[in-house]
């Protein structure tokens, strides 16, 4: 059985131990993803599962790669790596530390074709969040990738989503729903000090900036704008 990435015998662990580690990492990813509703998992957390009992320096990387393969072959999930490339201004002081540490995190994404996913897998009970996510990211993207909080809420208000609404029939607490997007790393918050004091900005974060996502959002926006030739401005 060809093992890409090198023979694990260099790590001085048996096949059973290796399999056990890989299984643990996969299980951690699956259970954690459920628990935190799809928020990215830090690479550190995965490495720790390995380094807890094994000292070899490059073992974590090997195990994570194997886990990636297995997640794909068993479940059809891609373990996508997100790079935290643009730390927000609130993290400025920690920037020097971060360059040495893996600021990588992971999410799992289905590898099924979109139509298949939509028809057989998608849970309609969560599609409201997907819709909300799409709308918010589109707004921020159209604003150039960064938008002031007030401005964002102004647009959301036009769709009946108010910052103070805790009982929206679909989204519940609307503010919390937006917070969820921050936790899932679609957005990040930024406090920018200006002449009037600090303003809160929302910026696209790694999950929304990731190549395929970004491209597709642009495509969808174009579709919507093209179709909607009768838009009126609601003042």
């Amino acid at each position, binding site marked *: *059985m060809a093992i890409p990435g090198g023979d694990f015998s260099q790590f001085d662990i048996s096949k059973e131990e290796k*399999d056990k580690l*890989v*299984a*643990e990492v*996969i*299980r*951690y990813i*699956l*259970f*954690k*993803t*459920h*628990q935190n*509703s799809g928020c990215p998992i830090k690479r550190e957390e995965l490495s720790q599962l390995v380094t807890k009992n094994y000292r070899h320096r490059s073992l974590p990387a090997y195990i994570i790669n194997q886990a990636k393969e*297995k997640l794909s*072959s*068993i*479940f*059809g*999930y891609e373990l996508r790596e997100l790079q935290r490339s643009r730390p927000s201004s609130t993290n400025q002081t920690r920037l020097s530390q971060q360059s040495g540490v893996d600021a990588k995190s992971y999410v799992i994404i*289905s*590898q*099924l*074709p979109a139509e*298949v*996913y939509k*028809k*057989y*897998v*998608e*849970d*309609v*009970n*969560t599609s409201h969040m997907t819709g909300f996510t799409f709308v918010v990211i589109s707004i921020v993207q159209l604003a150039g990738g960064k938008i002031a909080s007030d401005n964002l809420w102004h647009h959301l208000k036009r769709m009946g989503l108010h910052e103070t609404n805790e009982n929206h029939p679909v989204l519940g607490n609307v503010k919390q729903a937006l917070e969820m997007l921050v936790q899932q790393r679609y957005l990040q918050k930024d406090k920018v000090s200006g002449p009037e004091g600090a303003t809160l900005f929302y910026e696209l974060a790694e999950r929304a900036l990731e190549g395929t996502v970004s491209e597709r959002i642009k495509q969808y926006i174009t579709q919507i704008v093209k179709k909607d030739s009768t838009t009126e401005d609601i003042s």
Partner: protein
Amino acid sequence: MAVLSWKHHTLIQSLLERGPLTEKEFHSIFTAITGQNSGTHQGKFNDYLLKINRELSYVQLDLRACRDPYDGEVYYGVVNNVSDEQSKFGTKYSVPQIAFFKAIVEAIAQDVTAEGCICNMDVLNIRLENQVLNSSGSQSQDGSLGIPAAFRNFTMSQKERTLDQLVKDKWLCYTEDDNIGVGVRSVLDLRGWFNNAGVPSCEVCNEAGLKAKLCPSEGCTVRIHQYCLKKIFSQKGVIVCPSCDTQWEYQPPKAEPVELEDEETEPMQSQPSSRPAQSQSSLRSKRKRQRVSQNDDSNTQADTKRVTRSSAHLR
């Protein structure tokens, strides 16, 4: 070395994202993606499941089937087999909520009349402190056990909300008469736990007889599920207790719509018996969070197919 194709992946992911699915739903997905009717191509369907389970075993998971104790409907789900450090993360419920759930399930399991449910009032009156007592197993005096504040302060409204969420997630269900019963997830996941808790098994299918008919003869401890009784009755025309030879009077359920075609589908696709299911702290083994199933049928608990109430006692 691609053992599983996108078709297998679709089946797995559908269960992970949508939660336990009825046989009908699951079969229809299978049929749609393979173009083969799982009824006529039972072999192919089983093949798929076998292949899937072989791969899933790598991570100690299992694709298995079970029957809803209240209406006999078959459900499929992906279940965790081993309770370990990782699976402890697999839940969004808090510690007191889990204790609450455990208390409910225990109460249902210990019901000697095999009704398989407890009434709403009893649920809301559950005191979590007893859970601490039970788990520590000692008989110390009151107040000296260090019961966590969260347990003591678990309010009625928190209980109601937790109950609601548990039903939504299918760990519990509302039975016909507004009682609380075990949900499909519990039946799938807690099989090992029920056995360990001493719930007598059904004589026919050997699964936990949470909601079952008891042998009418005094002192005989035999239990059989209503849907298992139906099967025997349709095969033999009479029901005789396997242990004490008493004849059971059997009333076919009223309002029977279409005859279920594949009566013989006892879940053969369950895991091979070589691997014991050991899901002890089962709630933590919950997979992807699920809300209400999108297929309304499974949610209304198939009222028309529901067997006669347990009030139609066997004489």
